[in-house]
């Protein structure tokens, strides 16, 4: 009997084994920071194995169901970063919330493993497996603050709507299977390119179902309804985690399914995605203006950013995909950085998630305010920050693909977004504080902030390396 080559899937295997170990150790180790430390090491091992695998051995296994290539590696780097930064900003916060338990790290690792499987999925079934692993773990994480009503509400909402979207995805897969007899993405592409299935209305329906399911994962309108409530209710560290990881994973599978599997029906899915993208940018940017809770505001902002990132998929070119990937990388830094500042305001007795809590922060905490200023300008897309470079790449790819008008729509909404991002700056710098909030500073969160702010600025001033990296990774697709 011949065994499949397990080298390509080694990082995922190590990660899941480490996650199981962390869950077990929870029973024996009283100091929960130690468990967090073990989790970091486990993920580190997994990351090392990925670089090892990438350099040495073949790229596919399980008959092409699992693909480990430059494309998936790029996304996996985002997921690892997402994990590390989330852990760094979590430690102190969980202590304050009295929710520092070992499962937290285990679940984060499972969710990360799920995302990695999604990025590597060469088959729709594997894709679904990864998606469920990620989704189930994040449902629990969203409700991790058991004693808080809002956290429970967030978990239930996320779970119910997520369940629907998974069912819709399965429905779409089943119809594809019924039409073509395969769930292998590349095989599917070959069949569609050859035959007369292209004009089948069933295919069109399944394309629409895919858009719904993936749109839910990346929080694209009109499938975004869960996001504000879940983002607000979930523990802030998990909000940061969810706003980056599942979104990036969603774009990873969109790239494979739409650009490879359904490449020959590109006109059909762009026709659906264009209104989705416009609506997403509109809903995210316009509703964010009226928010007074910063977590909700960042939720709408994250919806808006999904709208920008979809533009790269709509472009339908390798350049477009590279732009989307580059954007997700930048977004990971600037968004988690912003959440790191939000999380610092949470202290005993102060929730710290209202915009008014930021009044006069620049006077009392100049460093934290300056960092938040950088993240806000980056999210707006003002140079010389990474956010500008990311948007510029996306705009360039969409103009080169012949959708200059869509670029105009995008920049118009981007200009609107300046209003609510700058309002945070305005509260911090231009209003007087009523009381002095205490910041929950810790070395870990300091490290996370240094990494994120350095990357946001580095990607804005010296973007060449990152752009080439994304370009090379997307070429593997």
């Amino acid at each position, binding site marked *: 009997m011949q065994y499949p080559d397990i080298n390509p899937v080694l990082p995922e295997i190590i990660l899941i084994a480490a996650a199981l170990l962390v869950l077990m150790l929870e029973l024996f180790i009283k100091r929960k920071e130690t468990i967090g430390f073990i989790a970091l090491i486990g993920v580190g091992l997994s990351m090392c194995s990925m670089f090892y695998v990438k350099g040495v051995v073949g790229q596919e296994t399980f008959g092409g169901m699992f693909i480990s290539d430059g494309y998936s590696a790029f996304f996996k780097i985002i997921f690892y970063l997402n994990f590390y930064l989330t852990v760094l900003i979590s430690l102190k916060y969980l202590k304050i919330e009295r929710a520092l338990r070992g499962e937290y790290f285990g679940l984060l690792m499972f969710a990360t493993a799920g995302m990695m499987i999604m990025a590597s999925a060469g088959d729709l079934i594997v894709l679904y497996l990864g998606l469920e692993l990620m989704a189930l773990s994040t449902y629990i994480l969203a409700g991790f603050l058991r004693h808080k009503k809002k956290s429970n509400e967030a978990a239930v909402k996320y779970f119910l709507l997520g369940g629907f979207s998974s069912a819709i995805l399965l429905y779409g897969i089943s119809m594809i299977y019924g039409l073509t007899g395969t769930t292998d993405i590349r095989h599917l592409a070959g069949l569609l390119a050859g035959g007369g299935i292209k004009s089948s209305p069933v295919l069109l329906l399944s394309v629409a179902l895919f858009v719904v399911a993936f749109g839910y994962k990346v929080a694209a309108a009109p499938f975004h309804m869960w996001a504000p409530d879940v983002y607000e209710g979930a523990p802030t560290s998990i909000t940061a985690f969810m706003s980056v990881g599942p979104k990036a994973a969603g774009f990873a599978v969109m790239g494979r399914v739409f650009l490879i599997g359904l490449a020959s029906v590109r006109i059909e899915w762009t026709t659906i995605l264009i209104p989705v993208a416009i609506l997403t940018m509109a809903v995210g940017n316009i509703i964010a203006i009226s928010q007074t809770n910063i977590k909700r505001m960042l939720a709408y902002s994250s919806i808006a950013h999904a709208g920008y990132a979809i533009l790269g998929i709509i472009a339908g070119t390798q350049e477009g995909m590279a732009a989307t990937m580059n954007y997700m990388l930048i977004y990971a830094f600037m968004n988690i950085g912003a959440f790191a500042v939000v999380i610092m305001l949470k202290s005993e007795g102060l929730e710290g998630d209202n915009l008014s809590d930021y009044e006069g922060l620049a006077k009392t905490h100049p460093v934290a305010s300056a960092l938040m200023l950088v993240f806000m300008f980056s999210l707006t897309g003002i140079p010389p920050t990474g956010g500008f470079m990311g948007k510029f790449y996306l705009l360039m790819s969409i103009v080169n693909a012949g959708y200059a008008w869509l670029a105009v729509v995008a920049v118009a909404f981007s200009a609107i977004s300046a209003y609510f991002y*700058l309002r945070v700056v305005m509260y911090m710098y*231009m209003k007087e504080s009523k009381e002095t909030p205490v910041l929950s500073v810790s070395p870990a969160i300091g490290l996370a902030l240094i990494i994120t702010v350095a990357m946001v600025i580095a990607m804005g001033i010296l973007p060449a390396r990152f752009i080439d990296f994304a370009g090379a990774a997307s070429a593997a697709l």
Partner: protein
Amino acid sequence: MEIGYPILSAVIFVPVIGGLVLLLVNRANESIIKWGALLVTIVTFVISLPLFTDFDKTTYLMQFQEKHAWIPSWNINYFLGVDGISVFFVLLSTLISILCVLISWNAIKDKVKEFYIALLITEGAMIGVFCSLDFFLFYLFWEAMLIPMYLIIGVWGGPRRLYAAIKFFLYTLVGSVLMLVGIIVLYNHAHTFNILELANHTYPYKLQMILFWAFFAAFAVKVPMFPLHTWLPDAHTEAPTAGSVILAAILIKMGAYGFLRFSIPMFPDATKAMIPVMLGLSVVAIIYGGLICLVQTDMKRLIAYSSVSHMGFVTLGIFALNSYGVEGGILQMINHGIVTGALFLCIGIIYDRTHSREISDYGGLATPLPVYAGFFMVFTLATIGLPGMNGFVGEFLIILGGFAASRIVGVLAATGVVISAGYMLWLYQRVFFMNVNEKVAGLKDMDAREVLTLLPLLALVFWIGVYPDSFLGFMHVSVSHLLEKINSGGPADMNVAQAIIHMVK
């Protein structure tokens, strides 16, 4: 012309790095911060001086060039250079920045450290805008400048600063992002961001038209041209003195500079087709801006609206598209930077004493502050365009150019000069003459620091007024090169203008 160091990079980054170094200074050490900022701006000014002394006036080519690969995969370079059109704006920026530090010495009491950091970073970004020869780099500086400027208005401004700051930011951003898409479309067509190469390319007429208006959105907001000017009175009025000076002296020049550097050479056909619209908007700005000045009760607001009127002259000269008009336009931008900058400095000096900008709170100021009144008088007359001062040369050339382009435009523009004499002299009368208002009795006259702030500008007023050729000489070759590409204005009209010039001589 060999200079041992990359002069343009130095001029851009000395202030930026100086600002970052100030970050490390303890905020309690206010005097170190102030002296440090002053030192940085003076050093920047000194290293920018070779641009004036070593400039080669005989070529239209870009000088002091620096070029390094930056983002190779998009063909973006770090590419700097100046020609006769841009060189004065760099010098003006370095000079004005020193004065801004001086004028803020006692006026800024809160968050001193942040203020000077913002000021220095603004300086670097402004200079970057005028030196960039890569469109991407240009846009980077153009937008990056918004961040410190937004903070300067919003944090250290007057009572309605929040409103003014966000209005300024949004107006400028909306215009700029449209230009951004325009830049990308341009790149899509020519596959380069190099401004010199882009200008040599010929674009289809329809594309020129679309891009002309996309760029118009960005530049006209900055100038500001009527009807996109409404952010300017708010921003100028609410900004702290240094912010108003930067806005008036340099920032709004970027729009007109953008027309000269991008719209006109890149889209000559669209420009020619749009001359009537542009001249019309300029004339409206001149007259409408002037009339509004007559009803202002706030000194700063009055000067702000006078900027709308004066920038109308500038755009009029530029879109007259003949050598008098364009050279006059560029010179008038510098004049306006000097004179309006000086007027804002003057208002800042008196505002520091009384904390009022209302004209009705003053009266008879010439009695307690004779030296101040003298300075103000000179700048007032320079604004009006009294012969022998800089305003006269610029406005004369512009009206001449406007007359050559269209007689009716020339005539209408000339009425603007009359209106400006009306509102400025009336302002002077109400503030400095008549009975001494008890609120201003016993105020101290200007101290040495304040005199020192205004003196360089005073010298420039007369230098340009008496011997403008030492400035115009820098522009001739660059401007005629620009106009060769456009070649507008009927020969008959040009002859008329020539004849007038001879008569004047």
